[in-house]
């Protein structure tokens, strides 16, 4: 029998142009076709399986239990219909002490790759299997559980990832690694690496950061100043406090006379945005850099320079996570004052946040509602009811209700079903997520 490859060669070049193979089988009409089919079949049926070497590692065993199949189906619904509530699914999954099921890992890693703000929440549900899988695909290396990488020779993204991993494990050793090469790094790299000290930031970083204030590159100086502001014991923080005391010493606020070299070194921007006075802008930056506890806020936000202190106080309370000052400022916002950053809602511990918002809703609903829309899920049942009732009376209530539906307790009272009719699908899905991924008792 003529082997298949020889017959294929005849078929390729054409029976009219190619001499038949040396055996003397028939070649007319359909003969060649029949012989092709027979030889192909002979080859196909007789082919032995390929043999390949074993390879690759095994994922570690996971201690954390998997999410239920129903939770996985809820995730599929989230991704297909309501991607805006993915952060809640991720937070719930982690909060329930579960990890994502294996089949969902590639989709989550892919989303985290394209949307960096999802990386941290996704990392919380990967489990050992997910971190192993991330290590198998170079595109997902940001989530890999590895200490692979070479600080000296890798490209910047890999070095940044390595620095952050080391910071999470041993902050001082990681900083020492950075210091060992810092002088040789390019300007952009220096700025990125200093900013990465954000992970594991502590007062032991202060001497290095203080030196970085004299860096020849502005981005590096700025990154260092932004971190030092968050360390109340730092020399920079003390200098800022002294400047602030000089301004608030008397009954009247005294503005800085000039933005001197020392202020510039501490990261104060000299040139104000359009429409803002230079001196007010300097004072704003000083207030924003100082821990806000202990300042006479009631007086400051009622006085002549109210807008400045509302805005600067918001920044300071956010940076230092000061719940008391946050509450003072949020009350001003609910009373109609402008300039308070609604993100302060997130500074308050959950119970306090819900109690305050409920109280404010009872007083000035429209302003309070704007604050409620900044609160992360899940609002307490009574705050949920109050917010939906307030929203049902608001203009443009469709948009507000849609925003609320992502935050309120999804098990709403049946008497609110009419108001929330358009939101029932997302509420139902969220209720399912809450059922399948309960908070531990």
């Amino acid at each position, binding site marked *: 029998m003529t082997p*298949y*490859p020889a*017959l*294929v060669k005849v*078929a*390729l*070049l*054409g*029976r*009219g*142009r190619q001499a038949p193979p040396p055996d003397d089988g028939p070649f007319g*009409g*359909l003969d*060649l*076709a*029949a*012989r*092709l*089919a*027979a030889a*192909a*079949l002979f080859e*196909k*049926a*007789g082919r*032995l*399986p*390929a*043999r*390949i*070497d*074993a*390879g*690759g*590692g*095994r*994922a570690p065993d996971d201690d954390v239990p998997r999410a239920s*199949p*129903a939770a996985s*189906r809820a995730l*599929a*619904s989230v991704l*297909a*219909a309501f991607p805006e509530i993915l952060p809640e699914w991720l937070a719930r999954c982690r909060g329930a002490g579960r990890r994502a099921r*294996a*089949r969902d*890992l*590639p989709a989550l890693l892919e989303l985290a790759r394209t949307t960096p703000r999802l990386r941290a929440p996704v990392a919380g549900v990967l489990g050992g299997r*997910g971190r*192993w*899988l991330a290590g*198998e*695909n170079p595109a997902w290396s940001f989530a890999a559980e590895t200490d692979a990488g070479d600080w000296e020779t890798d490209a910047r993204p890999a070095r940044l990832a390595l620095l952050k991993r080391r910071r999470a494990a041993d902050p001082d050793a990681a900083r020492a690694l950075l210091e060992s090469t810092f002088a040789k790094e390019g300007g952009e790299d220096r700025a990125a690496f200093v900013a990465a000290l954000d992970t594991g930031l502590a007062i032991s970083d202060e001497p290095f950061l203080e030196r970085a204030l004299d860096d020849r590159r502005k981005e590096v100086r700025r990154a260092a100043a932004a971190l030092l502001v968050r360390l109340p014991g730092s020399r920079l923080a003390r200098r800022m406090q002294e400047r602030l005391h000089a301004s608030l010493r008397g009954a009247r606020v005294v503005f800085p006379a000039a933005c001197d070299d020392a202020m510039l070194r501490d990261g104060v921007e000299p040139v104000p945005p359009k429409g803002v006075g230079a001196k007010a802008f300097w004072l704003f930056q000083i207030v924003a850099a100082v821990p806000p506890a202990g300042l006479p806020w009631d007086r400051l936000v009622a006085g002549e320079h109210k807008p400045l202190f509302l805005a600067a106080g918001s920044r300071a309370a956010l940076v230092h996570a000061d719940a008391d000052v946050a509450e003072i400022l949020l009350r001003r916002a609910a009373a109609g004052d402008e300039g308070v950053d609604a993100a302060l809602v997130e500074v308050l511990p959950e119970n306090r946040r819900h109690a305050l918002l409920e109280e404010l809703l009872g007083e000035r609903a429209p302003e309070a509602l704007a604050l409620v829309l900044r609160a992360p899920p899940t609002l307490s049942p009574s705050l949920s009811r109050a917010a939906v009732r307030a929203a049902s009376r608001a203009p443009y209530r469709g948009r507000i209700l849609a925003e609320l539906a992502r935050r309120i307790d999804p098990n709403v009272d*049946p008497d609110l079903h009419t108001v929330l009719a358009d939101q*029932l*699908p*997302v509420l*139902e*899905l969220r209720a*399912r997520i809450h059922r399948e991924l309960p908070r531990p008792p």
Partner: protein
Amino acid sequence: MADLTQAQIAAIAPDTQTIARAQAVASPVKWPAGGQDERALWGQCRGAELYDVAIDRRDLATRCTCPSRRRPCKHALALLMLSLGGMVAPGTAPAWVDAWLAEREPKGPRRPPDAEAQQKRVAEREAKIAAGLDELERWLDDLLRQGIAAAPSRPWETWDQAAARLVDAQAPGLARRVRALHAAAVSGEGWPERLAERVGLLGVLVRAYRAQDALPDDLRADVRAQIGWTQAQDDLLAGAGVRDAWHVLGTRVEEDERYRSQRTWLCGRDTGRNALVLAFAAAQAPLDRSLLPGTTVDAELVFYPGAAPLRALVKERGEARRLAAFPGAGVDAALGAWARALALCPFVEAFPLALANVTPLRRKDGWWLRDARGDAVRVAGRFEKTWELAALAGGRPIGTFGEWDGETVWPLSAWADGELEEL
């Protein structure tokens, strides 16, 4: 069992929004009436009006008087959810449910066809097919005389025209095979072997059809089916079937411009037989998902006649339960089964491959499934869910079910941690 039914609801739903809407309706307060018996579930749902909803237990077919164009509608899904929650009490079916069920019963014996007219139609078709085969023979002869080297650059129309003439000759099976030649011609490395084999099989079919009276009955049935003769399902269902506990191992849906086709692969627990159940639906209509991968169903299947029969119809079925064990083999044994099937019927195309304990491995040349002996099959290059497969395995051996096309496997499900996950 609860999970199983939840999954079934998800599987028959037209889309996830409808599931979400159904959940909003699945509250007993919205159902002033309802009940169930061994045949069906029914109820009245309060929406804009009062809708009558019923579900046939046998195949989860649904009926609802609401105006929604999505089927099954949210009311039918909600009724399933309620029953899952134990909130549908046993009862006596109202008359309209009985009437609907009766309507769905297979019809009694049809009016006997006019034998003479029937015979005439068959004779006319045979004549057309004979002419079509003559023309196909000339076309194949021409192709092989000039050589297939230029085939990859031949425009699609030249293949399509040849196929269209076979449609006119009422040989749609041959038409499909001629269109598939184009796909083989542009399939990249190794295309001459692929194309030459298919050209060869077309020639074999021409000869075999002409000489069909000399063939054994089962092979003759294969050849006639390949040409495009169909068999009346009622006739098939009248014959005896194969009873077994059938494991449902995977489904594959392929879309055409006009309709979707679904292949569902089963494997008999006791007989070890493979079976393929086909379903078709117009573009928007839902496909029959009553055979859910990851379940085992006691059923009687009737196989279409053939030398290596795979395609089957469900004659009778019971309730589904969760698949308890994966019926797989090593790579060598699985490919051996395929070789035996080819030996019986050379026209076998997609073949079921249930591989036990294979590890997905990524190499420079693509993904492979490797068993403990080191034997391996290549995963189809166009298969998109290799990372899902790798995630399910975690570097360990798992069961994998897929379709084998002679060169690569297209995975449809994976058996890991005692569960079958569809891919």
